[in-house]
């Protein structure tokens, strides 16, 4: 165990954990965040995605010590005083969830990609989401929501 400083959603936290502990469990169980979740623990599905310094990463296979002092954003940080970030609002507008379990990964991957590529096309968005899995078959709405966000960012 060792003390590690984490900057999550604009706040600093010090956690006392095994430095190799995957970030996912620290975010969920020490910082009590609900957004990132366990889907595979293998980096194959995207359920655990968070954004670190503008890049989306799979927190289930990221050692906590490797992101010390980096700016980490989880989907929980996309709600400010009850107001949804535009990308979350886009997902609500398009009713882009069935069970919703995978959508954390969709939102965080799309946000990081579109923030870097503001005029991303539909094809580029689909390619960016290629490593994310949705079992309910909500793909059309997910892409429509991401496209709405891309149009807003690129405007």
């Amino acid at each position: 165990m060792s003390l590690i400083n984490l900057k999550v959603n604009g706040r600093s936290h010090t956690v006392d954990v095994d430095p190799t502990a995957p970030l996912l469990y620290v975010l969920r169980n020490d910082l009590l965040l609900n957004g990132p979740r366990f889907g595979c623990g293998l980096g194959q599905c995207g359920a655990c995605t968070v954004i670190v310094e503008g890049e989306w990463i799979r927190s289930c296979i990221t050692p906590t010590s490797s992101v010390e002092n980096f700016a980490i954003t989880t989907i929980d940080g996309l709600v400010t005083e009850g107001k949804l970030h535009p990308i979350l609002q886009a997902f609500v507008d398009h009713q882009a969830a069935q069970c919703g379990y995978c959508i954390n990964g969709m939102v965080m991957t799309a946000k990081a990609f579109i923030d870097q590529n503001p005029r991303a096309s539909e094809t580029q968005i689909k390619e960016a989401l290629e490593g994310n899995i949705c079992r309910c078959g909500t793909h059309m709405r997910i892409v429509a929501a991401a496209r709405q966000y891309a149009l807003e960012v690129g405007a």
Partner: protein
Amino acid sequence: MKNIVDSNQIPVTQEHDDALPEIVRQAAEIGFTRRDFLKGTGALVVSFSLVGTEQLLEDSGTAVAQSPSATKVDSFVVIAADGSVTGYTGKVDLGTGTSYGLKMMLSEELDVAHERIAWVQGDSALTPNQGATVGSQSIRNAGPVIRRAGAAARKFLVDLASKKLNLPADQLDVNDGVVFAKSDPTIKVTYGELVGGQKFGIDVPAANNIVIKTPDQFKIIGKAIKRTDIAQRILGESFAHNIRRPGMVHGRTIKPPTANAKVVSVDESSVSGVPGLIKVVVRGDFVGVVCEREENAIRAAELLKITWSDPVPAFPEQADLYNYMKTLSDARQPVPAPTTVGDVNAGFAASAKTYSSTYLWPWQMHAAFSPMAAVADVTADGKCTAWSGGQNPHGEVAHIVRILGLKEADVRVIWVDGPGVYGRAGSTDDATLEAAILSQAVGRPVRLQWLRRDEHGFEPKGPPHVITVKAGVDATGNVLAWDYEDRHFPLVPVREPHAAALIAPTPESVGSTDGSGGNGHPYYNFPNKKITPILLPWVNKWVTGLRSNHNRAPGDPARHMATECFMDELAAAANVDPLQFRLRQTTDQRTIDVLNAAAERYGWQARPSPAPGNSRTGVVSGRGIAFGIRQTYVAAVAEVEVDQSTGVILVKRVIIGHDCGLMINPDSVVQQIEGQVIQTVGRALMEEVMFDQYKVTSIDWISYPLIKFTQYPTVEAVLINRPTVAPGGVGEPALNPVPAAIGNAVFDATGARLRQVPFTPERVLEALKNR
């Protein structure tokens, strides 16, 4: 009576405030039983004042009542003195929007705005047991009961108002919980004023004993209502996975490495160095670990040294699976007679030509995106509260009672949001019992989640089919004789959680061939038919990784694939357009309408397949059509591109013609259709469980891939509403025709016939070679 709605032209919808999550959350926090929930102190109870329901529980005569009776109006509707309304149902919303539909049905009959109705679902102590949420039955089977309960409550309230206002009931009307005189709306009384402090005390009336609204009276049924739980689900606030209890610790369980392996010994010293290890739990062949921290529980599960009994082959070689299935005989004694119409032998004798094909469908998994997870808190005084995201909260209670040795009255299972499960948790979600076993062992609340390899490896799976169809046709190609044989392992055998089978298995049954669909019965007007389902024996089905069980629309996709691909083969043999070939052999208007709806929307040009002029090399396009029925009528047109050099199929577009009878919420119908089609394109193109003789080897998303973002089609739905026909389900039927429509489109594009799912590039190349 029907009207057609284009999915692109659904009326503008409105959002409504969402009172649900907070109530459910408080229900979870407040107490152990419904009575505690009702009697407890605090704002929640003040606002509800559920006297009627409390009295009902007193009437039940047990110290702590379990699930309220499903025959009493009070179990479904509670109106507080302040007029606030709460609906209760045992059915749970798995992300499919059924809670909105059921609430709309209650709203319609009760005449209370749906926005004002709080909703409590799937709590074994608070809600009536209406069976597991399976088979697209919530709206179809639970909905009518809720409508009748709502109508009975409304009648009860209007009769009370009649006395109070001194006006005949037929001169009164209701608007949003206010009863008023038709002649003078200022003469009025609210539901809260009428029923405050009383229970209804009446039974849910039989269908012939209550008047429910007719379609012309609907205020809300049929309107498109948007879900308001999207944000909470995305943010994860409502998931079982995020239940946190004071003192909660983390469990993981370890599955047998080979089918039917027995625990010989467990070396606890192998994990003594894992920080925060609380306990290694061994009961029979069930092994679990509990740690203070989640990542350490996972580590302990990896490190724990268990000596298992020697591997014994349990499954046939995968390459030999279908041949093996052909050698087996029906497991049932006596073997039921086939379903017959006319005289199939005479039909063949009179036929000008006969044809036969065999279709193969693999083991497929539900592939829930989250491994099953649950939290359980078993206290020293023998009470268990568990939070489950499965499909059958009431059903979990009995397993916990049996395996933990608790009293039924002391076990409460509370459903909270979970991942989409598609039948995986229809009989049992597995995790709830396991969390309870571990919690009992350590005396603390335990959160348990399966590992991905265990979810893939040990979830109950949809069984394979070998379906052989023979047909005799007349000189025009019309079918005179249809002989259909469907060999498969049981569709519905798993009745107990994996841990229960590892600890104290109950005798296995032969299972069922009935997937509550049509069992392969063709819907066309063939004069002579014989339908023979053969239920093959499958041993150790409750313990191994090939637990044969219901997968979404059990049996139906395989059965429709065979029927509808074979119809396409017969149409091609007769050189007839495949749509016309179907239409000329049915007189059923609903069948005709969905086929025409999908075809018209697609822009179907009548011609036989394969498409004239397509090259034998390079990328070619084609279209295919298929029909399906599972109470709800569905037609699919698929448009595909086939790369003849690689064998890769790209499904570009799927049009669904859809008639589910009365549509409650068109928004939900469209979402369900989209999801089913995209999921099923993946099932048709790439999903096949791999295994060796000892274990399942599809244990992650690489070895069992799902459809990706660059592979999904555009889905369009044409909805046919039949307000005077009882609602069918919408969670399964739309997937039925999809595999056949794709296979038929590939034939149209290439002239190559696919008869084995999944339609992998290798199989496509093989079919191209043989065309």
